């Protein structure tokens, strides 16, 4: 009797049934196959010229999420099925976000390699119409303007961070923190307009030169440097400062000899991230540095080409030989991507190597 009664109780509340392990992987494989089959059919029927990889991935994800939801709903009930749905959606969000990244890198590499040759790196666009020519003038311009922006921003940024962390008290420091936040949000084109408005006041409305670009980029770079340096100075242990001060070392020497060296790894990383952020800026340089086809080593006079503006103008002013211009644009884009990636990876490595000792 008792046995049957418990039995009936169990059947009233059935144990949670689960799909067998591996079902989900099988479903995934099935939906991938289905989707691939569909797009292969499309390809052979002539509706699409070649195999549509992006479409395959998206359709496979949709089929998988739908299938796993329905199966789980039938077997495992509402709560588990919505859990599976969420897992499927979250994972496909990630996969979908990878698609543009992969496509972008693939396009840049495959198109950029056409002109990623010696000529690109040792000639300018002077007197070049159609094929040939290169981006040396733009690379030099980018390096000079970025270097100038770094020279302006790094001391200001680091000293501001030192002020905020070591000296700042009260309203002024709060105000500076707020304004650094505001500066972080300045659109790059507004920074360019600012530099233009500033220099146009002194040199007339036709002014275009490299140092103006450097000033515009500094407006964008300073807040990044301040932010990262501030974070780094904050994690320097207070014991170090107190030990140094207790030995009678003046405060400025404590900051210079103890605090900054401890945080130097993070500061360098932050500066490199900031450089990688501004080196690809186009809009402000388009406005204040202009564009030129010849070499110009002088920051203080005449228009100066930069790599991002070079890419833009090669694209937007295509001559008769369209492919030559597009190839140069992609080669420039590839150089930019490589520079930015190298800076980022270098920054990661440096932050590991020079990580402040003693914290965490």
């Amino acid at each position, binding site marked *: 009797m008792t046995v049957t009664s418990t039995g009936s109780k169990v059947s009233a509340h059935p144990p949670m049934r689960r799909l067998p392990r591996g079902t989900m992987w099988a479903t995934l494989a099935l939906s991938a196959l289905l989707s691939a089959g569909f797009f292969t059919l499309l390809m052979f029927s002539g509706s699409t010229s070649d195999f549509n990889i992006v479409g395959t991935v998206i359709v496979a994800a949709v089929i998988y999420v739908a299938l796993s939801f329905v199966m789980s709903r039938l077997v495992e009930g509402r709560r588990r099925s919505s*859990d599976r749905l969420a897992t499927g959606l979250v994972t496909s*969000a990630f996969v979908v976000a990878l698609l543009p990244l992969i496509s972008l890198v693939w396009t840049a590499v495959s198109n950029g390699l056409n002109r990623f040759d010696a000529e690109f790196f040792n000639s300018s666009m002077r007197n070049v119409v159609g094929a040939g020519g290169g981006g040396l003038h733009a690379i030099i311009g980018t390096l000079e303007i970025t270097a100038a922006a770094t020279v302006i921003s790094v001391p200001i940024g680091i000293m501001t961070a030192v002020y905020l962390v070591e000296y700042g008290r009260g309203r002024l420091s709060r105000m500076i923190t707020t*304004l650094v936040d505001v500066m972080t949000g*300045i659109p790059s084109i507004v920074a360019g307009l600012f530099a233009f408005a500033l220099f146009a006041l002194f040199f007339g409305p036709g002014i275009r030169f490299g140092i103006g670009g450097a000033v515009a980029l500094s407006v964008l770079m300073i807040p990044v440097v301040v932010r990262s340096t501030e974070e780094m100075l904050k994690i320097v242990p207070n014991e170090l400062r107190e030990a140094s001060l207790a030995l009678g070392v*003046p405060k*400025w020497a404590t900051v210079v000899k103890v605090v900054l060296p401890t945080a130097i790894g993070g500061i360098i990383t932050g500066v490199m991230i900031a450089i990688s952020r501004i080196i690809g800026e186009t809009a402000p340089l388009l406005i204040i540095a202009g564009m030129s086809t010849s070499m110009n080593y002088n920051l203080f006079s005449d228009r100066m080409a930069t790599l991002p503006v070079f*890419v833009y103008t090669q694209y937007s002013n295509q001559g008769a030989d369209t492919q030559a211009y597009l190839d140069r644009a992609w080669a420039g*884009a590839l150089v930019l991507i490589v520079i930015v990636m190298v800076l980022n990876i270098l920054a990661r490595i440096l932050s590991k190597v020079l990580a402040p000792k003693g914290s965490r």
Partner: protein
Amino acid sequence: METQVAVSRQRPQRRLGDVVFSGAALAAGILILVSLAAVTIFLIAQSLPAFSADPSDVSKDGRGFWSYVVPLVFGTVWAAALALLFALPLSIGIALFISHYAPRRLALTLGYVIDLLAAVPSVVFGLWGITVLAPAMQPIYSSVVESLSWIPLFAGPVSGTGRTVLTVAIVLAVMILPIITALSREVFLQTPRLHEEAALALGATRWEMIKMAVLPFGRPGIISATMLGLGRALGETMAVAMVLSPSVIISFALMTSQNPTTIAANIALNFPEASGVGVNVLIATGLILFLITLLVNSLARFIINRRKEFSGAN
């Protein structure tokens, strides 16, 4: 009591090095104040002529400054809002994937891969958008317009190049994804461990745990991350300037060749050839853009500052 007062009265000796160094630090801080004030003052000074200019100098149709600006403001907000619509669900999904779904070992690398997206220069995004994305989207647009053109959003005639506001919004969404993702991931990771474990111990599934513990905790973080992403999308220049085939109109249609352009793209396209009062007009539109982004960003900061718990959300 007596001794304490005596000690605090004793002035510490001022060293020259201290004075110079703290003075330099203070000067750097004040320079930030000054430069931001300068940005505002110079922009205002250079845009004043635009407000009082002869309407026929401002734009070709001669209807004055404000009728020139309003469509631009509309285009800016419209493109950014669309971008946000795509980017927000995706980036919350990605952030959750990295913080709660992916294996721990993988999570750091995956986060880094998404951060790489943020490092790609905008001009490269523009080039990609116009050579890869726009041609790829065009067939989709024409079939959508063919079958759904009775919905105002999908009204025809369809663009032949795919350089529409929808393509721009997708490119912008890809650009602001990493920003929103990075911030929301940071906040999700700071969910109190005990809340999560309590939910799981009560028998919640992983999704229920996220719904009950992670998302409510992260809501202010998500909101401010969204605002910062919006600020970035509003000010983005090159991608829009390169991809969009622009015109100065107000239109909600997503897939035509007549697209409302944005302030930033309009400046970039017209500045090199502008002269006279045209320059002032463009600078004035830049000032308006600055004010819009300032508003959005301050709102984000306000929300962040109200919840000081997540200090990592910069």
